[in-house]
């Protein structure tokens, strides 16, 4: 009788253990976004323009250099920071300035930002400035977008295709 009771208790204990294992392996459910929300992802990899333009070295500068290093053109390595602004229906959603990476500030930046928004129709405006030598934003894109629930709208930046690309 005692042995039977022990086996019953063992089954009870194993059941508790397995219920804990099963429950926390799937529950409680996590709501990443609300059912009426969509996600806008701003994602790009881009290097800003050099801070200064390439220029000719003066004869005096060339003379100071060893003969094997007398390149007549000098290009500064440092890149410009990249300023990005994103508006939805003229309301600012995101504004940030990304400093160039690298010890000499000569690397590009990689950006991935997510924004949860309610689904629906929006007027989207995004602009980017990648040079300290220009006064205003040199890339601007505007579009009317309709966001469905659970949709992922990706805003990429590909200067070789003319600037922003919305997927």
């Amino acid at each position, binding site marked *: 009788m005692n042995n039977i009771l022990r086996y019953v208790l063992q089954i009870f204990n194993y059941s508790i253990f397995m219920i804990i294992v099963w429950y926390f392996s799937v529950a409680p459910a996590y709501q990443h976004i609300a059912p009426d*929300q969509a996600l806008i992802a701003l994602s790009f990899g881009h290097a800003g323009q050099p801070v200064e333009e390439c220029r000719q070295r003066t004869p005096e500068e060339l003379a100071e250099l060893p003969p094997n290093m007398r390149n007549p053109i000098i290009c500064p390595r440092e890149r410009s920071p990249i300023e990005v602004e994103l508006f939805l229906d003229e309301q600012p959603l995101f504004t940030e300035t990304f400093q160039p990476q690298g010890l000499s500030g000569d690397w590009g930046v990689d950006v991935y930002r997510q924004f949860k928004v309610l689904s629906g129709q929006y007027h989207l405006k995004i602009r980017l400035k990648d040079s300290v030598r220009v006064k205003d934003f040199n890339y601007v894109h505007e579009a009317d977008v309709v966001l469905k629930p659970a949709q992922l709208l990706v805003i990429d930046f590909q200067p070789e295709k003319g600037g922003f690309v919305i997927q």
Partner: protein
Amino acid sequence: MKSPTKPSNQNITVQSDKYQHQLLASDTYKDTLGEQTLKKFFHKPINYTYLYVDAWLNFAFGTKNNPLYHLGSLAFFLLWIVLISGLYVFVLFDTSITGAYQSVESMTEQWYLAGVMRSLHRYASDAVILVILLHIIREFSLDRYRGFRWFSWFTGVPSLWMMILLGITGYWLVWDQLAQYVAIGSSQLLDALPIFSSSMTRNFLVGNLSDRFFTLMALIHLLGLPVMLVFGLWIHVKRLTKVEIVVPRGLAIGTFLALVVLSLLKPAVSHEQANLAIVPYELNLDWFYLNVYPLLDYWTAGETWIVTIGITLLLMLMPWIPIKRTPPAAKVNLDHCNGCAQCFDDCPFDAISMQARTDGARWKREAVVNPDLCASCGICVGSCPYSNPFRHADKKLTTGIDMPEFPVAEIRSATHTALATLKGPVKILVFGCNHSADVTDADASEIATIKLACTGMIPPSFIDYVMKKGADGVFVSGCRCGDCYYRFGNRWMEKRVRAERVPHLHKKVDRQRVYLGGAAETDKAKLLREIAAFRNMLLADKQPAEKTKKEANDE
């Protein structure tokens, strides 16, 4: 008849004073305010909870199969299930971005074999984390993570992380919406570290992901992390001897069957197939492994790293919060060491090594103690054949290996004092352990007690000695059976008494008069009951013998 559990009389107070004297020698190692706070508010409440659950599980499973006594080996057993089921799943798995999901779905559809294997892989992995968490909390509550045990605790934390990473990469491979969520979250976290030259997250935009990336993940999950985990676990148990990585058969069968039943009743299933153009809004997260990802919805990746690394560092540094002060390490007396290696064989923490003789004696080897590894448990003293109290009866007892704070000579002297205080029809000497129920609660006119760091430090010859010096019985109360604070104290003592392990208790000693028990702090009533029963048994045995003797004298 006087109850053995009656409060102390004057004689016993003397005995208790003796005990106090012994501990006062260790004043330097008494708890500081920080330690008192730690024990009172953290260790004790959790430990008491465990002790009550322990008692319940001991009743249901028996001490041999109590899962709480085998959490470490249970984790190893579950890892074996993970490995074998994982190998099976891998054979059927398609490591391509288009084929991965379908191959896993096909497995799930075959509910009786591949589906069960997939579910076993999932649930055994989850059970590993649960068992490890219980292991961590238990070792914490028993204060088995500070002092000489810092190494196992410290190295266990990275192993836990490797296990979690193994689970995360496993979820990634299914390539369902949960995998998509995990992949993007992981990439965001990795992008926050200065280790990649370009954004990893951008790989998960529509059209950017390739099979090669998937193959890389499979390689990390199947080879890279498992190899690192095995190495991590080897380091984790490096400072222990006779590591138990094999779970008792009964527990293994029960756990495996429970997992199979769970796999059949609630098979592991996937979410919808991953689609990088949409965002999964409700996810059935596996909270054992994926609990860090929701933080990314509230904090930046950098902040999430700070919190995660902070918790990890806190865990790793816990053995020094506050620093535990342990008594001096065991000391070898070469004049009395014949290099028999019994201490080397019995040491639970690999603190003793046998090295070439340095004193020119005729023996080949000598015992050498590494103080950094020594737990000061004294188990080596109990294993030394020179700890025999019958030796040097008229002068100070010196043994081959001894504890500077509580030498074997003092145990003998305490024994003499204790025996001298005993009065009554039955005389019992109780040896108790410092990490279990307080045996001094049993002090009475016919019962004297001596507390030691571990009952494993009592040489079996002491039991013989105590009886020859007038005691009717010897009661040894160690930690609760199966859960010795110093790992092997109870076990070695039991084997020595049964003559299964050297040094043996002399075969002429009546085993009926020796009681080997185990009692945790919450078992005080049980301990007193057992002592009372032992006393009554001795009394019952003694009275007929005395009666016969008296009758013979009368005739």
